[in-house]
């Protein structure tokens, strides 16, 4: 890794400058991560008095545990659902805004602000709109004969949290798609339209393939978002229910550790999540090195 050609002399100064960042990292990142690794190999007795070394038993148990496997598939559905909904809406809006000339910045302003809203608040907003007794959407759904109830129905609850999570993420995807669209050379599109390609044809054969680097990047970012940043949505609304149908992995770590006080199992779940973050980060960084190219 490079530095400047010319640098400052100084034996201790660089360490002093790095110290605050490094100390915070060691105390609040490295040490707890190490603790999680260590605790994942232990089991505490029922009173929390003694702990015994059990090796990989906690992990083995997790993979035999029906509720953990359920949580994994719930997380997968949630992540895929959120990513699909928010990316497709954002792509539709971005490619439409990109056609506009005078109104582009107005529409952009109107679409970017949900980024600022906390996941927990997004959750509460949608929870309120879909509230079975006073909410506006269940009222409309009832007119077409559907009884919405996210308190009993697992699929209703899942749909609700996906909507809330996707809604908040639209603005982020929109901005990146818009930037991607603006970097596509106009001459390609002009050439295609001279050859008689319709707007639809141009979108699917030229624009969409050229957007694939952005699309791929956003896919990774959205999966990370859905897996790790949506704790607030779940906690403020369904709390993992009904019947664990929205119990995503991040929520389960919290629920098992803080509410269930099963430290060994919670630590093992933390370790699995860390492995997932590492894999996703590596994918994201490799992508930046070598973009999907045509």
């Amino acid at each position, binding site marked *: 890794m490079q530095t*400047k050609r010319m640098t400052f002399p100084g034996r201790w100064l660089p360490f002093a400058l790095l110290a*605050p960042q490094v100390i915070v990292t060691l105390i609040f990142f490295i040490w707890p991560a190490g603790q999680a690794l260590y605790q994942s190999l232990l089991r505490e007795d029922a009173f929390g008095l003694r702990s015994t070394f059990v090796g990989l038993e906690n992990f083995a148990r997790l993979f035999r545990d029906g509720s953990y496997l359920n949580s994994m598939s719930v997380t997968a559905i949630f992540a895929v659902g959120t990513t699909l909904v928010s990316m497709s809406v954002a792509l539709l809006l971005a490619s439409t805004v990109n056609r506009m000339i005078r109104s582009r910045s107005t529409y952009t*302003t109107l679409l970017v602000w949900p980024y600022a809203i906390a996941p927990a608040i997004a959750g509460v907003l949608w929870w309120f709109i879909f509230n079975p007794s006073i909410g506006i959407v269940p009222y409309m759904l009832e007119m077409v004969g559907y009884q919405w109830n996210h308190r009993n129905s697992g699929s209703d609850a899942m749909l609700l949290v996906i909507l809330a999570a996707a809604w908040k993420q639209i603005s982020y995807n929109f901005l990146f798609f818009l930037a991607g669209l603006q970097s596509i050379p106009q001459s390609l599109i002009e050439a295609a339209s001279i050859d008689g390609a319709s707007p639809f044809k141009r979108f699917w054969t030229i624009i969409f393939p050229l957007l694939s680097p952005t699309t791929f990047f956003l896919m990774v970012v959205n999966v990370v978002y859905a897996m790790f940043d949506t704790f607030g949505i779940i*906690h403020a609304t369904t709390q993992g229910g009904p019947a664990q149908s929205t119990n995503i992995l991040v929520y389960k770590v919290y629920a098992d550790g803080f509410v269930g006080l099963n430290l060994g199992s919670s630590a093992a779940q*933390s370790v699995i999540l860390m492995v997932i973050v590492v894999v996703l*980060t590596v994918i994201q960084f490799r992508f930046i090195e070598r973009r999907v190219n045509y």
Partner: protein
Amino acid sequence: MVENRPWANFFAHTVLIIGVALVVFPVYIALVASTQAPGELMRTLPLLPGSHGIENYTQMWQSGISSANSPPAALMLWNSFVMAMAITVGKLSISLLSAFAIVYFRFRFRMFFFWLIFVTLMLPVEVRIIPTFQVVADLNMLNSFAGLSIPLIASATATFLFRQFFMTIPEEMLEAARVDGAGPFKFFKDILMPLSVTNIAALFVIMFIYGWNQYLWPLLITTDPDYTTIVMGIQRMTSEENPQWHLVMAAVVMAALPPVLVILFMQRLFVKGLTETEK
């Protein structure tokens, strides 16, 4: 746009107006709900704002919801603001310093420290909840602003961004400064800082929103109502048996307003910060 198709334009505007309406819809409903009288929200919600806005907001601002054990919104907003500012300023200052060290000095273990900072990217709070909580408890930092902010101020993204930016500053700057006899601190204060103002401002917007919207962390380490932040306070209000939605929605609007205003008024910086921190 390469050709003129009036129908396509009409269609495009329709799509966008529907899109904007869908995006605005939840917040519009919150505004409507926050202006209703208490009894109005027992039945299906009216679609137009009511006339009780001022009293609902005043009540929420001054006294909160006592049955939900929720402090006044004024206090919670202040707590959120202090936490967000502490996280933002903390992240920016320690990242500037460490990027300065990494770019402008040659020392042993430089690579090691670089990777150590990088690793923090891979350890979001959500995956190391319990051990981090234990550390903060052992340090007696529960129920304090230090506990709310310090564990969150390490930042790999900000450090990388500043490193990238410092690398683009011409070598001649440093050479000229050294010829004129400037030491590291003078160089940092009089040359690097003024050059980084736009980057700092862009990151400030992103970090402020990040700090303001913290949820899990304050939830874990504050039990004292005096430290309740607005985002977690709202969750507490909704977990009542029969939530007082007209007040809850007033709190939701107040909680969302500051970060939304930051984005609207600093849109250019926000977009710059967002696209650069991710790349």
